[in-house]
């Protein structure tokens, strides 16, 4: 009972704080000095039409590298937590898996056909989103999430399909490593770590522009896509085991 009163008290106090915050809120009428700097110098300096992308990938590129690292660690953590236990001693893991997977009810005709039809388009759309991250809303993380939703499709429609763990780890490590290599190239060839001006900026607003930003986003997109697919696959395998 005391606990309940305490919780209610905390929430009421927090609500009072928020009310005060909302009551004194005034909408900005101009950009903050930092935002103004990004809007003024960003397009000419980095050549990216999407200012958010130029902030995410270059001005605060180190944050993004940390973000990719956090995502990697959490994917690794999920992998560790949901590691498949070999309950039936002596049996090969693969055989066990097959035996369990046969219990699955197959997906309906509609889901299977729709997946066959839509899966290539979903993956293509994901690639489109991360390739155009510097021009339009989108980017590596969004594109990667779309690709992972394609994987989700695949797992729903064909529960027995197997995603190669080896392929996932190779692609993930390679793209993460290349991301860091591009960052270090920035130190050698341009102004600093993750500087995108290691190559020509190209014509503003075209696909091949903004220096290294599309390259970095391709790596981020591939990495995020494979990582999230691995997480989904882990959860799927775990539901088989129980």
């Amino acid at each position: 009972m005391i606990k309940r009163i305490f919780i209610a008290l905390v929430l009421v106090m927090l609500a009072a704080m928020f009310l005060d915050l909302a009551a004194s809120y005034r909408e900005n009428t101009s950009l903050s000095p930092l935002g103004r700097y990004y809007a003024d110098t960003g397009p000419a300096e980095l050549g990216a039409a999407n200012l958010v992308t130029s902030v995410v990938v270059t001005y605060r590129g180190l944050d993004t590298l940390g973000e990719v690292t956090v995502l990697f660690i959490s994917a690794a953590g999920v992998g560790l937590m949901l590691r498949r236990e070999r309950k039936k001693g002596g049996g090969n893991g693969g055989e066990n898996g097959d035996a369990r997977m046969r219990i699955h009810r197959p997906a309906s005709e509609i889901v299977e056909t729709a997946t066959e039809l839509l899966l290539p388009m979903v993956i293509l759309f994901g690639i489109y989103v991360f390739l155009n991250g510097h021009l339009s809303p989108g980017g590596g993380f969004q594109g990667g999430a779309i690709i992972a939703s394609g994987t989700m499709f695949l797992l729903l429609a064909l529960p027995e399909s197997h995603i190669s763990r080896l392929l996932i780890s190779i692609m993930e490590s390679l793209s993460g490593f290349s991301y860091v290599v591009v960052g270090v190239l920035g130190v050698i060839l341009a102004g600093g770590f993750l500087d995108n001006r290691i190559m020509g900026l190209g014509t503003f607003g075209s696909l091949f522009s903004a220096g290294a930003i599309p390259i970095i986003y391709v790596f981020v997109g591939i990495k995020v896509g494979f990582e999230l697919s691995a997480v989904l696959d882990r959860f799927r395998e775990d539901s088989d085991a129980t």
Partner: protein
Amino acid sequence: MSSLPISLIVLCSGLGLILIGLWGMLTQRNLIRMIIGFSLLDTGIHMVMVSIGYVTGGTAPIIDAAVPAAEAASRVVDPLPSALVLTAIVIGLGVTAVMLSFAVRIYQAKKTLNIDECTESKW
């Protein structure tokens, strides 16, 4: 300008979501519901952050035919909070995935999702 600025609506919904999420995390006994509470809290914080970056009459910070580079500073919303929210969403996703995997493990070990059953680590 209408009487109620749009960013105030987003701000208030965000603050409301934070409260609902916190309430869910504190009062619910089911692990999945607690995780949903966390997600709501997370989303609320994102909405608050985005609303703070809004500039009256501003548009998306993308330079194109509609928003020439010369007028960018006076016509776009602040790109910095958007970039931070982008980061925060991904981190939130990672944290949620780890929490869900914990929930799965607890369910495997105890055959229940009720947090009251997990008494070993209770103080």
